[in-house]
């Protein structure tokens, strides 16, 4: 039995179920093979909106994130790291409450067994104060890190309330990419979609086209993001963009309804549309295998 199957089974035992399996044709081999091709996996969680209160939308707003942390901890094989792709907290005008929420969020995710956790901001965390509070708790708004031959680039498209990356960060990105080899494996982590998914729903980055143009010359680039509270997959040329589910509420498919609105909680199907994902990085093949997990009653 593969490690992948082991994790699935354990997640089911932990009250989690596999919802969707995406874009993968490979099945992971045993541990020795993983080391040989440097494959690894990490967990992406997104849009936890800690501090949100809306019983009709999520009556378990105080428990969903904790359930997700428990589920990750229950994985047979722990991920190499965990990444949160923004909107860690629900926005507020109150500076103290904003910081209280960030402190509470940090305390909850400190319960993760895996201690390598990468954060990034969403507009709820950073747009009202240009990321001041966020940086106090979680560090830089944009940065890079490397893991097993993959270069990760965290882009900030939220601390500017106009949803732009900005010229300064674009230059930083260009300088970073100039150091890469042509065949470098690159994963961009960001909050908003970099392409115009639904600009009238605020699902875009104002200068996202410039970011994509900058990334386009490199052949092995994948983008993981959040913000839209649902799984979504899109290609801009050879660059794949994968959106993750939220851990607080779901949103409708882009353009499917006249007005974007939170999908109400369903007592018949609790946690419907919420979840997280595992991302298997097959480094040698420059492929990423995504497993989507839903949160079920538990």
């Amino acid at each position, binding site marked *: 039995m593969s490690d992948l199957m082991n994790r699935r089974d354990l997640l089911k035992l932990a009250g989690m179920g596999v919802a969707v399996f995406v874009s993968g044709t490979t099945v992971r081999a045993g541990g020795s093979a993983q080391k040989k091709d440097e494959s690894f996996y990490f967990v992406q969680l997104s849009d936890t909106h800690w501090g949100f209160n809306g019983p009709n939308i999520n009556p378990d707003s105080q428990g969903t994130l904790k359930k997700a942390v428990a589920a990750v901890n229950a994985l047979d094989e722990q991920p190499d790291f965990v990444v949160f792709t923004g909107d860690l907290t*629900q*926005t*507020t*005008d109150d500076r103290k409450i904003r910081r209280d929420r960030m402190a509470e969020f940090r305390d909850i995710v400190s319960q993760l067994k895996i201690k390598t956790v990468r954060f990034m901001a969403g*507009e*709820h965390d950073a*747009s*009202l104060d240009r990321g001041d509070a966020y940086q106090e708790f979680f560090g830089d708004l944009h940065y890079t890190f490397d893991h097993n031959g993959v270069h990760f680039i965290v882009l900030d498209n*939220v601390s500017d*309330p*106009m*949803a732009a990356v900005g010229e300064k960060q674009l230059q930083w990105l260009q300088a970073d990419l100039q150091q890469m080899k042509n065949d470098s494996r690159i994963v961009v982590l960001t909050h908003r979609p970099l392409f115009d998914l639904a*600009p*009238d729903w*605020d699902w875009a980055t104002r200068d996202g086209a410039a970011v994509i143009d900058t990334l386009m010359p490199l052949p092995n680039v994948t983008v993981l993001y959040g913000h839209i509270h649902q799984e979504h997959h899109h290609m801009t040329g050879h660059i794949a963009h994968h959106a993750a589910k939220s851990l607080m509420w779901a949103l409708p498919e882009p353009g499917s309804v*006249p*007005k*974007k609105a939170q999908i109400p909680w369903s007592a018949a199907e609790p946690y419907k549309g919420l979840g997280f994902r595992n991302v298997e990085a097959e480094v040698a093949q420059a492929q990423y295998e995504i497993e989507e997990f839903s949160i079920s009653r538990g």
Partner: protein
Amino acid sequence: MSMKKILHHALLIAASAGLFLQQTAIQSAAPEMRNDEQVIRISASTFEYKPSEITVKRGVPVTLELMSQDRHHGFKLSAFQLRADIQPGVVEKVRFVPDKIGKFTFFCDVFCGDGHEDMSATLTVIE
């Protein structure tokens, strides 16, 4: 006059003509003020526009006077490819001629807080 000077003058004339054409194009693209100009003042504040529904006539120029009562907001009316920033203390004027009838949504595209997602209003264009 040397050939070099003739060429220089010719380039200047061509450049001036180009500039003139460009300015003319911009001016003609902007609606001319008319007596029946539809002037509508819209107030923006967290997290609404007042009025939240406005009605205008097709083919008659519209001036929207946008004002913020509290913080930086945005105005985006994609159906007519219009957008503006609305800052407190500044009246931002947006002029256009509605050329199609129907109901169109405009919304805030500058994140302004918990409720930003609901900050929208409706423009109705009638005959």
